C-alpha cells in the first residue's frame, strides 16, 4: 500500500436535512483526505457540520437527512464494489454509493472503520457486561470462536490499560469510572484492527486529567497499530496536541486545512485566525480581555449569501465575499483555504445559492 495515497478521500460531500421549515445544508461541499496512519483533526463550533460529516462517513445519518452529493472514497479490503471509475481491481470504494444497511457497509462499519462515540455511558448497554459487548464486536468481524474471542477481548483490555482485565471483562459499564469506560470504548473500537478510527469528541465529557490519559493512550495505540484517526473536537488545545493535520469547518464547509503547525502558527483564513486569538489560554497573561469574533453563528436557515463567514469577517471584500462562495484552493497545496483573500476561485458546485 502506497503511503502517500490517501486511505480516505472525501470530495464535495453534501448532506442535507429536509425539514418542514426548510432544508438545512448541514454539510455543504466538504473535501479532505486522510492518509494511512495519520491523525486528522476536524475542529469547529456548533453547527459546523463535523458530527454530520462523520455520520455520513459511517452512513448512519438519520432521516430526514440524506447524502445528496459528493463521494467518500475509502480504500477497503472488501474491494468488490464500484471504484470511482468503475474499473475492476481498484481498491477504493465510494461509501456514498453503498447500501447503508447492506452487508458490505456493515462489514466496513466496526471492522475497517470504527467509532468512539462522545458519551461513553450512552454507548454501552446497561444489561450486558462490557465483556459481552466486546466479544460481540470481535465475533462479528473475525472468524474466531467464543473462547478465542474472550481471550482476544482480555488482551485488548490489557492493552488499553484496564487493570485486572480478566475480572473487569465481566463488569457492567455502570460499575466502571468514566475514564475506564472510555478506555473500554477504545478497546472495543480497536478490537478488529480498523484502518480508520473515528473519535467523536471522545474527551469532552471527561475530566482534564483523564483526558490527558486518554489522549496519551490514543497516541500510543495509534503508533502501534498504524491506525488512521479522524478526531472531532471543538477544543483547539486537544487538536494541537494530537493531530498531524487539521480541517477547520464552519457552517458546513471547510474553511482551511493543513498541517497542524501551519494552521496554528501561520493560519490563513480569517476565521481560523480569529478563533485562535479568542481562546483562553493558560499561557496568556492573567485577567486580560480576549479578542472576540463579532456577531454570532448564524442559524442554519439563515445562511448569509456568499461566504458563510463574511458577515463576521474583519477582512471581508464587499462585492466578492457576499456574493460568491470561495472554493478550497489550491487543491494540491498542503494548506488550501476557502477565502478570496488568497485566490479568486469560486466553488462551481455550490455557486448557485
Amino acid at each position, binding site marked *: 500500500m502506497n503511503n502517500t495515497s490517501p486511505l480516505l478521500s472525501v470530495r464535495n460531500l453534501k448532506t442535507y436535512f429536509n425539514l*418542514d421549515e426548510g432544508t438545512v445544508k448541514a454539510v455543504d461541499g466538504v473535501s479532505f483526505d486522510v492518509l494511512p496512519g495519520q491523525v486528522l483533526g476536524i475542529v469547529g463550533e456548533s453547527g459546523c457540520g463535523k458530527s454530520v460529516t462523520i455520520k455520513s462517513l459511517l452512513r448512519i445519518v438519520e432521516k430526514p437527512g440524506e447524502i445528496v452529493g459528493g463521494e467518500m472514497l475509502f480504500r477497503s479490503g472488501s474491494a468488490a464494489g464500484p471504484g470511482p471509475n468503475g474499473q475492476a481491481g481498484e481498491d477504493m470504494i465510494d461509501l456514498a454509493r453503498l447500501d447503508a444497511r447492506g452487508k458490505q457497509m456493515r462489514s466496513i462499519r466496526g471492522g475497517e472503520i470504527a467509532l468512539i462515540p462522545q458519551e461513553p455511558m450512552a454507548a454501552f448497554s446497561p444489561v450486558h457486561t462490557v465483556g459481552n459487548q466486546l466479544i460481540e464486536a470481535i465475533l462479528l468481524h473475525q472468524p474466531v470462536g467464543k473462547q478465542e474471542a474472550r481471550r482476544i477481548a482480555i488482551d485488548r483490555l490489557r492493552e488499553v490499560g484496564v487493570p485486572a482485565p480478566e475480572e473487569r471483562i465481566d463488569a457492567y459499564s455502570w460499575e466502571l469510572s468514566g475514564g475506564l469506560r472510555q478506555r473500554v470504548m477504545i478497546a472495543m473500537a480497536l478490537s478488529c484492527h480498523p484502518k480508520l478510527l473515528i473519535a467523536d469528541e471522545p474527551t469532552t465529557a471527561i475530566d482534564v486529567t483523564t483526558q490527558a490519559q486518554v489522549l496519551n493512550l490514543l497516541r500510543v495505540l495509534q503508533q502501534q497499530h498504524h491506525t488512521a484517526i479522524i478526531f472531532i473536537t471543538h477544543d483547539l488545545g486537544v487538536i494541537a496536541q494530537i493531530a498531524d493535520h487539521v480541517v477547520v469547518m464552519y457552517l458546513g464547509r471547510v474553511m482551511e486545512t493543513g498541517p497542524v503547525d501551519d494552521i496554528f502558527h501561520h493560519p490563513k483564513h480569517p476565521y481560523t485566525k480569529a478563533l485562535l486569538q479568542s481562546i483562553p489560554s493558560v499561557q496568556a497573561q492573567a485577567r486580560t480581555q480576549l479578542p472576540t469574533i*463579532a*456577531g*454570532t453563528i*448564524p*442559524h442554519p436557515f*439563515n445562511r448569509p449569501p456568499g461566504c458563510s463567514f463574511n458577515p463576521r469577517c474583519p477582512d471581508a471584500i464587499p462585492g466578492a465575499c457576499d456574493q460568491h462562495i470561495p472554493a478550497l484552493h489550491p487543491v494540491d497545496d498542503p494548506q488550501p483555504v476557502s477565502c478570496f483573500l488568497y485566490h479568486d476561485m469560486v466553488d462551481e458546485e455550490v455557486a448557485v445559492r
Partner: protein
Amino acid sequence: MSTAKTSPALPQVEEAVPVVALPDLGREAEAIYVAPNWKLVWWRFKKHRLALISGVIIIFIATIALVPDFYSTLPPQESDAIRSFVPPQRPRFFGPNGEFMYVYEVTGQRNPTTLMMEWVADEAKIAPIKFFTPGYEYEIFGVIETDIHLVGLDNSAGVQKFHLLGTDRLGRDQWSRLMAGTQVSLSIGLVSVLLSIILGVLLGGISGYFGGWIDMIIQRIIELLQSLPPIPIWMALTAALPRNWSVEQVYFAITIILSLIGWTTLGREVRGRFLSLREEDFVVAARLVGASQARVIFRHMVPTFSSHIIAASTLAIPVMIINETFLSFLGLGMRPPAISWGVLLHEAQNLQSIALAPWLLIPGLAVIITVLTLNILGDGLRDAADPYS
C-alpha cells in the same frame, strides 16, 4: 426591608459592550420569538392532520353531548308498544315529488307464527324530512325552551314518527336514545377524569415537592390502589349502591368510584415531574431570588408540565368511557331509566335481540368512534406538547 427600590445611578451606557443584534428575519420570525408556549404547541399540533380531523369530530360529538335533544327526533323515554323492533329507516335523497330527503314509511304485520311484528318499507308512502323542524319540546341546559330539532318530519305527509336507527323491544326510538346516551357517557368520562386530575395533581404534587415521609406514605397508597384489581372493586362498589338511589345520585357515585382508582397513574407522573423539576436550574434560580414556595410551584413548576397533563388526560377520557360502558353493560353501572351507551348495550344483550334486531348494537359503534378519535387527538396533543418524551 424597604419596598421603595431606587435604581442606582449608573454611568451612561457608552457602547463599550457590543449590543447583541439578533437576526431580523421579518415579522414571521418575530411572531415565533414572542410566541408563548401554547401557541407553539398549537402550531405543532396543526401539522398533525389526523389529530386535527379527530379534534373536529370530537367537537361535533361534544355538541351532541351538550344539547342531545336538538339532535334527537323523538323523546328518548317514550315507548310505543306497537312499534317494537322497527328496523332503521334509511334516509333517501331526491324523491319523486321533489323532496330533498325522505324516508319510506313502514307498515307492520304480525307474523302469525312468532307473534312478532314484522316491518316492511312501503315505497308508496313517502315521508319527507327536513332540517331544523319543530318537534317535541325540550329545554336547552334546562333553561331555554324550544322545540327545534336538527332533523324532523315535515308534517305534510301525515306520518307521525320515523326511526333513523330503528326501535327496541319497547318501541323506543334508538337514534334519540343514542343521542341522549352520548351526553351521559361522555360527561361521565370527562367528570371522572377531572376528579382524577385534581386528586392526582394535588397528591402527586405534594408527594414530589416535599419528599420524605409524606412521599413515602402517598406512594405506598398509590401502590396499594394500583395493585387492587379494578374490575372486581368496581363491581363490588357499584353493586353496593342502594337500588333506590336516583339517577343523578348513581351518576355521581359512578364518577367518584371510577376516579378513585384512576388518579393513581396521573399522580405518579406528576410526582415524577415534580421531583425532577425541583432540581432544575430555573426552579433553583427562582428560589434564589427569593420566590415563595407557592410561587415556585404554581408559576414555575406546574405550567411546565401542564401541557403534558392535558395530553395525558385526553388519553384517559376514553378509558373512563369504556369503563363506564363496560360496567353499565353488565348492569352494574348506570341503570334504566338512565340512558348511556352501556345501558343501551345492556338492553341488547340477548340472542333474540342480536338475531332479530342487530341495529341495537350500534351504540357500540359510537363507543368505538369516540374512543378512537379521542386517542388520536390525545396522541396528537402529546406529540405537539412534548415532542421529546
